[in-house]
């Protein structure tokens, strides 16, 4: 079962989410679909994940226990997979996980001297993450690492040179596209998960950013400032055959592929405020996802549902608050999924496409919520309630306990 490319490039700058654009972004990895990261082989024992002593109580909006979360929507307990997220409960950014019903909270990875940000599960229990370290006198690094989602072991880093951002992967592919400044302002590299030197795919002094590998692994969409402002381009997956897809004097950025690879969603400021647009992968049929909002409303973080039919997005008002909405591009219908009034970010689909998880910030405190994509059953259910920041959720498919080799 595919989990779809449900990890949009996120551009939110929030309290802690300042970091999102760095670490996060669209690893289009599909959990459970092979893709063996890192060279190190992992032991094959099939122990269940260890519940940590610091498991936090989950809470619904109205109550504060996992039982309440389950009562709010009994179906949550039956949902597959696990939600991986960033938690700052211990000060630094750590990678935690929790079941969709708010139970089973555990720490996947933490480091006393680094911040860790999950990209998305990469299959066979591996989680790709960005590890950032640095201070006054040591190198500020953003490294790409692999972590065993089940037993929390970390493999040797995959890519250490340069500051790595925006890794993207075709489902199951043994390679990633990333953005780094290892040799230039910013360029796009192809990184093998099975060894070998990274290969530089772009070269322009004003930078290339935000690679998004097509689901079939043949193309990489990306953003470049080579003509004087941000536009979207596409190239072959091994570099070359670059084609410009957008042209306008205001920015176009953050390309996201539909699961079938027949549509690119992206953000554009061509009409003034940032809005989600769609186009064919050759740049034709560019169109706004949604009709009119108030002029000040901006859209962000588009994420295709696993079946490619719907998109989740963040609809943000001028005061910075905003909700998660779901839109149907075929009909133009749209509806809010999250409760009004908070600052919501980074919606991610459940593997079955029926639910969304997102971070919601209220008064500087960010927690995770799960909501039905169709709002058919109740409202959003809070699944974390720690006073520290919990954010950047990624809904991973059930962990396969059979790593290849």
């Amino acid at each position, binding site marked *: 079962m595919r989990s779809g490319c449900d990890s949009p490039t996120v551009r939110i700058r*929030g309290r802690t989410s300042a970091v999102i654009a760095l670490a996060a972004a669209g690893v289009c990895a599909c959990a459970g679909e092979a893709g063996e990261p890192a060279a190190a082989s992992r032991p094959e024992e099939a122990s269940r994940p260890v519940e940590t002593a610091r498991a936090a109580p989950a809470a619904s909006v109205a109550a504060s226990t996992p039982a309440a979360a389950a009562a709010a929507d009994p179906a949550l307990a039956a949902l597959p997979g696990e939600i991986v997220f960033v938690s700052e409960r211990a000060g630094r950014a750590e990678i935690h996980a929790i079941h969709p019903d708010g139970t089973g909270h555990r720490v996947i990875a933490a480091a006393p001297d680094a911040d860790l940000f999950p990209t998305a599960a990469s299959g066979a229990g591996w989680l790709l993450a960005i590890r950032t370290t640095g201070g006054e006198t040591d190198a500020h690094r953003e490294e790409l690492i692999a972590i065993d989602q089940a037993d929390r072991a970390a493999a040797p880093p995959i890519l250490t040179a340069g500051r790595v951002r925006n890794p993207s992967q075709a489902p199951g592919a043994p390679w990633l596209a990333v953005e780094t400044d290892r040799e230039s302002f910013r360029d796009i590299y192809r990184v093998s998960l099975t060894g070998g030197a990274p290969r530089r795919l772009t070269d322009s002094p004003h930078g290339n950013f935000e690679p998004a590998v097509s689901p079939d692994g043949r193309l990489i969409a990306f953003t470049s400032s080579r003509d004087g402002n941000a536009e979207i381009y596409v190239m072959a997956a091994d570099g070359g055959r670059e084609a410009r897809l957008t042209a306008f004097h205001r920015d176009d950025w953050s390309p996201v592929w539909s699961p079938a690879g027949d549509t690119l969603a992206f953000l554009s400021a061509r009409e003034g405020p940032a809005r989600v647009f769609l186009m064919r992968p050759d740049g034709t049929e560019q169109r706004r996802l949604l009709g009119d909002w108030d002029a000040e409303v901006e859209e962000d973080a588009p994420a295709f549902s696993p079946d490619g039919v719907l998109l989740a997005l963040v609809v943000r008002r001028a005061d910075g608050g*905003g909700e998660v909405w779901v839109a149907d591009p075929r009909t133009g219908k749209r509806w809010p999924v999250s409760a*009004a009034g908070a600052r919501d970010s980074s919606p991610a689909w459940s593997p079955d496409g029926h639910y969304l998880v997102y971070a919601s*910030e*209220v008064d500087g405190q960010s927690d995770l919520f799960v909501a039905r994509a169709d709002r058919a059953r109740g409202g959003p259910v809070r699944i974390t309630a720690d006073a520290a920041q919990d954010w950047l959720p990624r809904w991973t498919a059930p962990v396969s306990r059979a790593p290849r080799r």
Partner: protein
Amino acid sequence: MRQARTIHRRDSRRFALLSIAAMAALAGSPGCAGEEDEGADPQPPSPSSPSSPSSPGGSALDARFAAAAAEFGVPTVLLEAWAYAETGWSMIPGASELEGLEPAWGMLALRGARLERAAALAGEPLDAVRREVDAHLRAGAALLADLAAQQGIAAGDQLGAWAPAIAEASGIADPEAQAQFVHDQVYAAINLGAAVDLESGRLASIEPQDVEADFPAPRRGADRAVVDYPPAIWHASPNFNSRPSGTGAELVVIHTCEGNYAGCWSWLANSASGVSAHYVVAEFGEVSQLVRESNRAWHIAASYDCSLNDNVNCGRNGQSSNNFTIGIEHGGFASQSSFPGAQIDASAALACDISRDWGMPRDRNHFVGHGQLQPFNRTDPGPNWPWTTYVQKMNAACGTGGGGGEIIVDSNNANNDPAEAEVEVSASWTSSASTPGYYGSGYWFAETAAVSDGAVFRFHLDEAGARTIDAWWTSGANRSPSAPFVAFDASGNTLGSATRDQRSGGSQWNTVGTWNFSAGWNSVVVSRWTGSGAVVIADAIRVR
């Protein structure tokens, strides 16, 4: 001279949670902040939430300032102006940006030892002073009264006589910055008046009154010496060194001070701080330059200086981001729900100047937030920094992409600024987005015919002058080899015409001609009147 400002601010969650009860009391608004939205129809968010009438006359927050001030014998308006200068009456939740400065809390942005002293003087628990409005205001009033007493200022003294106590209360060390804070920020709020309006009503206000602060005036322009940006005031910081040879500025990093402007530049100019930025932009639009652009400021803490590490790893990989960036600090807080227009305008004009000097693209990849570069717990410039507006204002200041010198008229009016650009076509023209490489969101095409039924691209010029017209189209074998372009002035007089072969030259700007246009709405028409059996494409024109 700057004007009194009324800030119109949405009821942000942060405000709502000053404390729900507090807000309800402040503006008569029901405590709806935490409400679920179960029954909401799928409608776009509305800019106006249901609001209650504001309290007539002063607001409840004014009354709470008055209560705290009265208890400790300090002037209400001074306490209120101090808070306005620090935070615009926002309760700041422990914000930290600058190395060596403790996090700031509450409306008075109290930090560190001053916060503790204020709490002790008022007999309030530390946490209450940090987070609760009344406890915070009581502590601030107690601190102000104490500092005043130390300087021999008595409760009945003239408002202006309290200036030295405000200077002390600010925590600013530099005399020039103290003078600027006292005169340009606190007493300016009293002289000019101030108000903050939320949707649900008036948060607080200060009625203007003539008062002169009894405090040395800022030197004003005496240091307007060598700056890279002429409108800036030079406040030299010792906290810089050279960029590595061959390294220039490639990226601009936007920060917020997590404190007020004067406190910010003065700390960055203080050798004890060990940090700096190239520029600091005030809430009211003033710009200070602290470090020359050609030098390396120390504005990104989590960076690498190989010279501090036995010159290990000096390659690009280990380079400090300070090496190739310019840092712009902004007075204010990342958590504030909006930034003053004067500050955004001033910063965008500065950003335009920097982009010109260093040949930087003016886009979101080259003007970034601090947090985008440094994944730490810093939040500036906050989720509410208006990035889209900022980039557009920067372009407008540079006369590109609309505004200033250059105008682009797209074939889709949704992409046009109606104040200066408009397209109009008849029903004979067909909208398309099927040949790639068009400008914006699509283009119009029409079959050639001996009719005057052109696609009209109108643009507004404030003054008459010669302009060069470029055109964009998608090329193809069925395009006309002689697509006619006809230029008209605002009176409808034909200025001239030219033809271009649209079978090639697609997806780029192609020069059509230069004509003397008049003030008002001029136009360039893509005509159908040319050899038959082909189509003409109307995609976009650029006026430069």
